[in-house]
């Protein structure tokens, strides 16, 4: 469902637009790596000449497949949304790009979805579905046995969850910047309820489609790359491993600096926390509201941190409620980032230490191992 203009208010639309722009910028870099960069190894630095034609054709495919009608019965029919399918078939970055481009062209050409709501639409339908679907899919494929059937099953679950997840994100955006006051509970129930149904259809179609592609060209399914079998030869009635080809595996992917990704993420979260909460409605959020309505919070005891300087998402001694909320958001993001980076840093340090000791043990001499 494409949100039209005027459904979400202007500040939240702008913030969603910024988030979408950030995600697309990250995806543009990621897609170059996903689609194999250049065909000429000498031009490795420039990169990405394969990206435009391949991603463009995949976008055209998604655009076309959205017109393929799947009859549900009784004269109604549904169609694929394609976020999960794109993520599994071509990878998350390319998936985000393709669905975003489809949404952009739909908004500009067919007036399907408002121009100011483009950020909201990309955030819910391109970014959320793709990321949720891909994360789930990778997780499941890792856990399940390495067979074709488990790829199909993982695709089913990924698509099933991705659609309601996008409905949840839409409801959140609506909660912050909705222009009508339909109660949040109703919106959430309606959106998630309907989208669970849609999700079931999407899941069946996605799983069947991924199954069809895996059966014919398993090498094209990005999410199932790890499942490739070694080539075997039958020599004198026995199966023998084929001699390894001289071509190295196209693995070195994440060798690039993460700094830009990191900075983009940080800026986005700061903008969201500071700017959006600045404009967020002062009403309590849905859960709190349900709680007050039903008298649940009478029983709720004050949180142990209730008189910490950041209690209830506001900075003490700052009178302006909005400013204080925004500040609290920014500080919260800052603390989260510092804590997260700290954990990450510690883990990485320990890992390198382990590797170093292992290397020293192996070689028997204290060589300095470059990391």
């Amino acid at each position, binding site marked *: *469902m494409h949100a*039209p*203009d*005027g459904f979400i208010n*202007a500040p939240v639309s702008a913030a969603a637009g910024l988030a979408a722009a950030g995600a697309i*910028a990250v995806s*543009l870099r990621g897609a170059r790596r996903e689609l194999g960069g*250049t*065909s000429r190894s000498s*031009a490795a630095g*420039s990169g990405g*000449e394969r990206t*435009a*034609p*391949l*991603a*463009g*054709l*995949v*976008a*055209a*495919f998604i*655009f*076309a497949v959205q017109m*393929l009608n*799947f*009859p*549900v*019965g009784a004269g109604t029919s549904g169609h694929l949304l394609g976020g999960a399918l794109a993520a599994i*078939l*071509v990878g998350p970055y390319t998936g985000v*790009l*393709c669905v975003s*481009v*489809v949404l952009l*062209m739909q*908004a*500009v*050409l*067919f*007036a399907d979805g*408002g*121009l*100011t709501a483009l950020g909201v639409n990309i955030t819910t339908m391109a970014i959320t579905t793709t990321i949720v679907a891909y994360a789930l899919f990778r997780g499941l494929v890792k856990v399940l046995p390495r067979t074709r059937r488990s790829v199909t099953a993982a695709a089913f679950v990924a698509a099933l969850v991705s659609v309601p997840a996008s409905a949840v994100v839409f409801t959140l955006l609506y909660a912050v910047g909705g*222009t*009508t*006051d*339909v*109660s949040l509970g*109703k919106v959430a129930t309606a959106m998630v309820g309907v989208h669970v149904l849609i999700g079931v259809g999407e899941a*069946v*179609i996605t799983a*069947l*489609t*991924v199954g*069809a*592609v895996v059966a*014919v*060209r398993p090498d*094209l399914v990005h999410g199932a790359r790890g499942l490739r079998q070694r080539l075997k030869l039958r020599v004198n009635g026995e199966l023998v491993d084929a001699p390894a080809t001289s071509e190295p595996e196209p693995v070195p992917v994440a060798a690039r600096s993460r700094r830009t990704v990191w900075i983009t993420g940080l800026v986005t979260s700061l903008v969201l926390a500071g700017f959006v909460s600045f404009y967020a409605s002062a009403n309590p959020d849905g859960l709190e509201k349900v709680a007050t309505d039903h008298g649940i919070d009478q029983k709720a005891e004050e949180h142990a941190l209730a008189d910490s300087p950041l209690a209830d998402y506001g900075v003490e001694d700052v009178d302006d409620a909005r400013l204080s909320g925004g500040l609290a958001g920014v500080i919260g993001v800052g603390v989260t980032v510092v804590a997260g980076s700290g954990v990450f840093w510690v883990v990485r340090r320990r890992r390198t230490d382990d590797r170093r000791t292992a290397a020293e043990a192996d070689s028997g001499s204290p060589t300095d191992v470059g990391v």
Partner: protein
Amino acid sequence: MGAGHAHKLYRHGHSPVHALPPHTKLAAVLAFVVVVVSTPREAMWAFAAYAGLLGLVAYTARVPAGFLLKRLLIEVPFVAFAVLLPFVAEGERVGVLGLSLSVNGLWGAWNVLAKGTLGVAASVLLASTTELRELLLGLERLRLPPLLVQIASFMVRYGDVITDEMRRMRIARESRGFEARGVRHWGVLAKSAGALFIRSYERGERVHLAMVSRGYAGSMPVIDEVTASRAQWSYALALPCAALVVCLLGWTL
């Protein structure tokens, strides 16, 4: 490509609106929609004024009203949704024709309908006075990442090809006596979708190789640099500026 090189949404003409550089038109439409969205919903007359402004543009562009109204039909699902709003929204209620409607819901429905319709109308005017290729050039001029514009242009260029491929698959299915009637037939349709993906991806690989063999190295050469003079900019931005005046009046009055 049987239908010529213009897409069916474009309406050929030689009006002053057609002649404007694409990026000025894109910027104008975007600014206009932003202004419309940030207008308070209580200022009903302001939306009438916006509609009048768009009517003026349509008249200058010689886009007939029937064409415009027919294209507005894309909005119908949202009209249905907006009609629901007065019944489900909260707040004080008012009796109209024996129905109990929420005042807030009525305002909300009006808000979504008015702003949505104006947005759709502006986009339709843009698409019917700007050629597809120009639109992409305009997006590039507006500093959209070139890679994104390239992806969009490939999508637009091969969209019809892929859709045709899908149509041929449907004809092939039907000529073998297949008719999808319910959930049981989804397997066949999904296999078609899978085949369509493989064909699209492989076509992408072939297109890439064909382009590389003709010297493509990651960016398209710019053949026709579109530039806009100051007069053209001011002419295009007359629409959002007029809308901004209306919007400010709507906030103050």
